[in-house]
Structure formats: structure tokens, C-alpha cells
């Protein structure tokens, strides 16, 4: 191995780092370490001048290793790797120290943060010394796409891809397309008909030559990797022929919250306490009647049912406030004389036209009553014998602090959007992760909200988190664009940091074979050693973590590299 010549670069990140870390001191501290040729700092290393600084130094000082101490490698590792490559050294001869997210932003003592930064930079320097050049690899992309879920998100993505002339397999578990939107009457805030929107869309999907729709169908198993997946489907339990495709979009949608677990609301006990979706059914049928067949004179809409409550779900379902206001419009139109109560915890009208819609609705003679979501939910009781109403809602009205009772004949519960009940199953088959609320987790919450950490798998619509129709459609089309881009490219880069076997050390104990979740490791009878299928390997390194002989390891995460990092991180320890 050639003598390491390491260039170290510290980023100020404006004041984000320099405010809490004495960048100058760190630069000086590490400048004398073995193999460090130069150490510099700059205001924004990720900027063009910052990158140019590295590129110039690599050329003029003949550097063969680069360390950048800046933000999280999850943000800019690729940026700097590309800069290294531009300067002519292998991008993997680079290491990043995270002194922003994991240092300057989380500490308040400048000297401690500076000491920590020194440790982290030394660790990176010690590690990069043992980095080895790795070669990029690509695989071809099958132009077909599998879309799981035939709701508005799945269909939007399907049409987008199919209109580009690429094959789409659209799989729907139910016996019809349309998903939740097919249940809606009107949509907010324009009060346009959901049926008129979704109906023609379903027809376009069903008649599209490039879309193959399979109803009553579930995905049994997905094998393969980005660009080259294959799946077994089952239609009504019967196995279907295997299909192959290059990308997957999960659009499995949501499940409405079951309010019967909330005792206060007596859902299931009182026939006129109904969920928002049941009310949509009523609206579509064109009749707002109590179970006794009478027009309700008092209608209450309770918000945040199962949402924003530690007992049920802490998150906000985002659309229910607007749906409730939409109900107000529809009820007011049908029952001009009815008393309408909006019993809410907070009114959220964040979207385009939403605040205006809310303001407009307030003039529909609605009585808004606020309750404390955390302290006391409203309680629905049976009315007294001499009351001229069906039920009474007892609540503490938060804005006045007064305990009130509200006479009602019908209560609509704005139920939360829960993750789909099928979610665990899908997670298993397509290999994506779930967040704490059982929604699929995106690759990056801001910069990559449609991809997942599994290459070639995208998430759209409410399976990623509660959202309204335009957001779902936007996400669907974004995912479609991403997929079309990879199809247009024809190939995609795959994991470089795969496992590697040192065959001269492997004794053939085969411990590594059963631990591999991707069956990427197998035993070669002739070599009498384990071998890795690099296309299947995703580089988790679990095999390396169990090899008793130290024969198999993951590239870029070798024992030597990690042990050096540990030594480096502890070298200044007090």
C-alpha cells in the first residue's frame, strides 16, 4: 500500500459548527498527526469553492486520502466523494466526521464540543488510513414497475408511468379500484365531487394498454434487488405466474381508526354516533337521517378521534379538520335550520385554500366548541326523557372554561388515519422500515420523501403518513418520475460496500451463510470456502460480525478500519 497522504478539511457551516466548535483549534490539533499532509478549514466545505479547495489540494499536494469534518455523512458524504473522484482519487478513500448533527448542534459547552470534534476528526483520520479503493457497480433496470395498491396514489403513479410507455403491474387487494377516495362524496376545499374525479381515473387505468390491473390480489413474495425484482402474486389465494419488474411503488393506503376503543364516545352503542367515513356513505346516498329515519336537528362533529392523543395516536391526521368543515357545508346545504356543532381540539388549516375555506365555513352558523384533547374528552350520553334531542354531549369548553352540555341527534366522529393493517406483511415482502406509528419510513424526511432505504422501492400516499389527495397525487407522480428516470438511464448503481471473503482464511465453517438475510453468501464446495454474490449483497456486514476466523468482512467496514476508528476516537480521551 502506498504511503497515506491525508488532507483534513473542517467546515464552519457558517456559524452552525463554528459557534460551538473552535474549528481553528481542531485544525491545528490534527495537523501534526501521522500521515496528515495538511489540515484546513473553510466556511462552507460543501460549497463549490469548498469542494474546489479539496480538488486543488489533492492535485497539488498529491493527497490520496481525504477527511472532511462537517455535517452528517448522510447529507454530504456523496458530495465529497464526488469531489474526490473529480480530483482523480477513488471516492472511497474519503471519510467524514460528523461534527454538526452529532456535536455542535447537540452540545452547549464550547470546550467540550471542541474536544469531541478533535476526537471525531482523529478517528476519521485513523480510519481513512486503512480505506481501500472500491469500484462502482451498476445493474440493468427492468422497465416494468409493480404498484401495490389501487387507490388514488397507486393509480396516479400507474398512469404517469404507463403514459410514458412503460409496463405497470397494479395490484389491488380489494375487488375494485379507487381506495378510500371511492368512498368520499365531495372533496375540500373546492367541494367538487370525488366520484366524478375517481370514476374516469379508474376507467383510464383499467383501459390503459400498459397497465395490467389485478384485483383481489396480494403479493406473496418479492425477491431480487433494484432493477431486477421478481414477485409471486396470489389472486384469491390462487398462485399467479411470476412477474419481473425493476421498481416497486408501495401505495397500500390507510385504515380508518376504530373509535369503539374510546369509551367516552360510545361508538357502537349509540346508533347515531357514526364515523366520518360512514357519514360519507350517507352523503353519497344523499340522505342525512338518524337511525330513526328523522332529519337531525342537532349535528355534532367531533374532531381528532384517535388523533393527537397519547392514549391512541399522538400524530395529527392532517385532513380531518378540513373534512369536518366540508361536512358542515354539506349539512348546512341539506339542513338549513339544523344546529351544527364543531367539537374540536385545534383547528388546522395549513394547506392551499384551507384557511380561506375555514374562514368561509365559520359564517355558516356553526358553533365551534373546543375541548382539551389531553385532559378530558367530551362524553356522549343518552338524553334525558324530557329532552327534545337524542343524545347529550358533556364537555368542558376550553375557550370559556365552562362545563357545558350540547343537545345532539347525530354525532360524526372524525376518525384518525391509521397505518394499513397489512403493513407488517408488506414490510416483510418488500423490505422497508416502519416509523413508530407504523407508517413506512422515507429515505430522507426532507430531501427524499418518496424513496425508501431499499433501492428501487418507493412509498406514496397515506402509507407514508396521513395526507390529503393533492399531496398523495404529488408524491405518486414524484415516485413515478424517479422510476422513469432510472428506466431511462437503463441501469442503476448498486451497493459497493458489499461483503468480501478472504478465501485464504475461510475455513468453511459456514457460520456466515445462514445469517445472510439476502442469501448472498453460499458455500463453494470446490474452493471449500464461502463466496459472496455481490449483486444480492446489501452490505449489512452481519456475516463479518459472526465470522470466527475473520475471513469474511464488509468492504469499507473492515475490522482494521473500525478498530482504528475506535483507537482514534479514544486517543485523546481524558
Amino acid at each position, binding site marked *: 500500500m502506498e504511503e497515506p497522504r491525508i488532507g483534513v478539511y473542517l467546515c464552519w457551516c457558517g456559524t452552525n459548527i463554528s459557534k460551538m466548535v473552535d474549528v481553528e483549534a481542531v485544525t491545528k490539533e490534527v495537523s501534526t498527526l501521522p500521515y496528515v499532509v495538511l489540515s484546513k478549514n473553510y466556511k462552507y466545505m460543501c460549497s463549490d469553492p469548498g469542494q474546489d479547495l479539496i480538488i486543488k489540494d489533492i492535485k497539488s499536494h498529491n493527497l490520496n486520502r481525504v477527511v472532511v469534518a462537517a455535517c452528517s455523512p448522510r447529507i454530504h458524504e456523496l458530495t465529497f466523494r464526488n469531489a474526490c473522484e473529480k480530483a482523480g482519487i477513488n471516492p472511497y478513500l474519503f471519510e467524514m466526521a460528523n461534527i454538526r448533527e452529532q456535536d455542535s448542534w447537540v452540545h452547549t459547552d464550547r470546550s467540550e464540543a471542541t474536544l469531541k470534534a478533535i476526537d471525531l476528526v482523529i478517528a476519521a483520520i485513523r480510519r481513512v488510513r486503512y480505506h481501500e479503493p472500491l469500484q462502482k457497480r451498476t445493474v440493468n433496470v427492468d422497465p416494468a414497475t409493480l404498484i401495490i395498491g389501487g387507490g388514488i396514489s397507486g393509480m396516479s403513479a400507474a398512469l404517469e408511468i404507463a403514459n410514458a410507455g412503460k409496463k405497470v403491474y397494479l395490484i389491488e387487494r380489494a375487488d375494485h379500484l379507487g381506495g378510500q377516495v371511492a368512498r368520499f362524496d365531495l372533496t375540500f376545499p373546492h367541494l367538487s365531487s370525488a366520484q366524478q374525479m375517481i370514476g374516469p381515473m379508474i376507467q383510464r387505468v383499467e383501459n390503459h394498454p400498459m397497465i395490467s390491473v389485478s384485483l383481489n390480489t396480494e403479493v406473496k413474495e418479492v425477491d431480487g434487488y433494484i432493477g431486477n425484482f421478481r414477485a409471486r402474486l396470489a389472486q384469491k389465494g390462487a398462485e399467479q405466474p411470476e412477474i419481473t419488474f425493476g421498481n416497486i411503488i408501495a401505495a397500500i393506503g390507510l385504515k380508518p381508526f376504530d373509535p369503539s376503543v374510546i369509551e367516552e364516545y360510545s361508538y357502537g352503542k349509540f346508533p347515531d354516533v357514526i364515523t366520518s367515513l360512514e357519514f360519507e356513505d350517507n352523503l353519497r346516498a344523499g340522505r342525512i337521517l338518524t337511525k330513526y329515519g328523522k332529519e337531525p336537528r342537532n349535528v355534532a362533529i367531533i374532531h381528532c378521534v384517535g388523533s393527537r392523543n397519547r392514549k391512541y395516536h399522538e400524530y395529527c391526521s392532517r385532513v380531518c379538520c378540513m373534512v369536518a368543515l366540508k361536512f358542515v357545508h354539506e349539512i348546512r346545504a341539506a339542513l338549513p335550520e339544523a*344546529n351544527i*356543532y364543531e367539537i374540536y381540539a385545534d*383547528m388546522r388549516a395549513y394547506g392551499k385554500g384551507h384557511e380561506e375555506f375555514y*374562514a368561509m365555513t*365559520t*359564517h*355558516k*352558523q*356553526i*358553533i*365551534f*366548541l*373546543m375541548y382539551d384533547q389531553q385532559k378530558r374528552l367530551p362524553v356522549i350520553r343518552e338524553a334525558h326523557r324530557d329532552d327534545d334531542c337524542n343524545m347529550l354531549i*358533556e364537555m368542558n*369548553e376550553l*375557550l*370559556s372554561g*365552562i*362545563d*357545558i*352540555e*350540547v*343537545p345532539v341527534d347525530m354525532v360524526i366522529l372524525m376518525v384518525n388515519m391509521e397505518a394499513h393493517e397489512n403493513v407488517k406483511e408488506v414490510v416483510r415482502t418488500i423490505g422497508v422500515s416502519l416509523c413508530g406509528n407504523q407508517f413506512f419510513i422515507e429515505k430522507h424526511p426532507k430531501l427524499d420523501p418518496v424513496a425508501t432505504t431499499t433501492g428501487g422501492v418507493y412509498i406514496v400516499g397515506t402509507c407514508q403518513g396521513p395526507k390529503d389527495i393533492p399531496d398523495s397525487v404529488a408524491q405518486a407522480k414524484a415516485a413515478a418520475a424517479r422510476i422513469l428516470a432510472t428506466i431511462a438511464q437503463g441501469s442503476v448503481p448498486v451497493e459497493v460496500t458489499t461483503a468480501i471473503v478472504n478465501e485464504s482464511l475461510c475455513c468453511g465453517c459456514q457460520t456466515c451463510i445462514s445469517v445472510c438475510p439476502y442469501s448472498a453468501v453460499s458455500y463453494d464446495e470446490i474452493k471449500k470456502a464461502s463466496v459472496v454474490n455481490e449483486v444480492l449483497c446489501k452490505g449489512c456486514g452481519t456475516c463479518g460480525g459472526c465470522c470466527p476466523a475473520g475471513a469474511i468482512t464488509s468492504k469499507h467496514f473492515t475490522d482494521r478500519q473500525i478498530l482504528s476508528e475506535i483507537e482514534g476516537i479514544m486517543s485523546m480521551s481524558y
Partner: protein
Amino acid sequence: MSVRVQPELRSQLIQFGIGDWNACYHCGTCTAQCPLSEEGFLFPRKKIRLMQMGLKDELEASVEPWLCYYCGDCSTSCPRDANPGELMMSLRRYLTSIYDWTGLSKKFYTSELWELGFIIVFAILVVLSFLVLLPSMGYHFTRELTAQGGVQLNAFAPIHVVETFDWCMAAVVASLLISNILRMYYKIIWKYGNMKVSLWVHIREFWLLIFNFAVQPKFNKCDDKRYWLSHWFLMSGYTIMFIVIVVYLPWFQTQKILPIWHPQRLLGYYATFGLLFGLFVAIIGRIQRKDVKFLFSHISDWLFLAMLTLTAITGILIHIFRINGMPLATYISYITHMAVLVPMILIEVPFSKWSHLAYRPFAVYFQQLKRYAVPRESGHP
């Protein structure tokens, strides 16, 4: 014990002013910026809430609407244009009708027919008294002038008869107003909540009532000080006029033309100036509609201004015509003056807008009583 919401209260409330308070989404900006709103007596937001929910008893027990002097800053700062200031104004009208046991107040506020009819009927009665009743009692119109060349007013409007009538009218108005104030006391202090206020506190804090009536320090706490001055002129002018006309009529309504520095004339001029100045500001404001407090004018507002202006102008005319020895003009002015003044006092003082001259200082007094009635642990002394 829960209070039941009464959405139907809305249909009653909207008759007293602007109807839609649903625009309010309770950000509390109005309360936060109001210099008069204070801990324990927060408004306007809380009162709007009571209106929205239709909590009648809570509304009627509210002292806060009277603590508002309608500077209009709340309406200016309202992000939703919910007009909290005007809602408080409407609420004052509503409360006036609630305090009034005769039900006339509500009629006047909610029916223009009733109000105009009442005014016209009384105006006719006044005119008839001058044209029919007084002549039949032997008081006649005379062209004869006094030695100083002034008009013989007392020959036409005999001072003791007018004074007697004034006293009768004052008695009626006062008894109505006092009974209304007692009802106000009953609703705010007696009935609502479980409060007890000692007699000593009642006596000790009584000065507040006088002080607030005379100075209106609360009004001056509003950020815009201009209106305090014009209102004070109006109020003091009116009060002086009211006292000299009702209590000291014989001293005021003289045939003798007194020297210009005589207190009778000076008081009269001051009162006239105060009235005219206050009226000018109010009328210009309501016409220009630049200031938010003048943005919405209920029929009762205009009627009141019109009548008061007419009263003031006719009063001036009487004075001018009298000292210049113009009998006919003096008498016509006098009849007109009385025809406007009488229904105005009868309507406005016990039943309508003018009653606030009593309700406001009493509200400050009741507020103070409430302070001493609230249990210690809730944070009040």
C-alpha cells in the same frame, strides 16, 4: 353542573347589532391588546365565546361589556375582522334590554317602528300640550316684549308648569332607571355565582361610582385619548344641562336677559359648547366612518345623535330668539325643543343608549364589589 348551550339565543342577539360573531376563532388578540381588560374581567374574547355558545345566564351576569369604552383597537387588530368592539356594543344594547323589566327597551332596540312611533307620539303630545293644554289653562302666546326687549317666555311656557312636568318626567325616568340598575345588580352580584359582598364594602367603594361618573377614568385608559375629551365634554355638557333644566329650571329659564358673565349664561354656553363639540365629533365620525368605532351605526345611534343635536340647536335658537326679542321664533323653537327633548329623555335614559350614563359607573362599582367577593384562593385580594 353543566350549562346547556342555546344556539337559539343567537336569533335574539343578532337584533341588537351586527349578527355574525362566528368569524372569531379565539386567538385572544383583542383581549391581549385591550388596556381595560384585566385579570378576572377579561374581554372581549370571553364574552364573544358566551355569545357563540348562547350561554344566556353567563351573558346577563357580565359586567365586562360596560367596562369597554369602544376605542375600537380590538376590531382593528382582529385578524379575522370579527369586530369584537362592535360585538361588545351589541352586547351592551342586549344587556340594556335585559335590565329593563318593561320590555320596552327591547322593543325600541329591535323595532324601528316602535321607537319612531314612540318618539312621534310623544312629540305630538308635547306640541298638543303647548297648543291646546296650556292655552286652555290660560297661558298664551304674547308678542309683548320684556323691558329689556326679550321675549316673555314664561307667559307661553309657564315656569312652574314646565318645572312640575320636568319633575314628573324625572321621577318616571329615575324610577325606571333605578329599578333597572337594581336588576343589573341582581343579575351581576346577587344571582350569579355564590358571592357575598359585605355592606361595608358597598359603602366603602361607593366613591368609585361618583368618581367614574364624573371623570370616566376608564375611558381615558383607552389608547386613543381624543374621544375621552370629546365624550367628557358631551357628558358634562349634557349633565349640566339636565340638572339645570330639571332641577333648577326657574333659575335657568328666565325672561330677564342676564349679563353675559352671569353663571346662568356661562353654564348654558359651556353646556351648549360641550354638547355641540361632542356631537360634532360623533356625527363626523359616523359619517366619515374612518374610525372603526364609528363603522357600524345602529338605528338607535343615529336617532340619539339626531335628537340630541336637534335639542341642542333648538336650545341655542331659543336663547338667540329670546334675547333678540323674536317671540314667534322663540315659541316655535321652544315647542320643537320640547317635542324632541321629552321623547328623547323618556326613551334614551331608561331604555336605550343614554342609560349607559348610569350603567357604566355602576359597572365599575359592581366590578369592584365582585373583586372583594371572589374567594381569596382564586388570586384576588
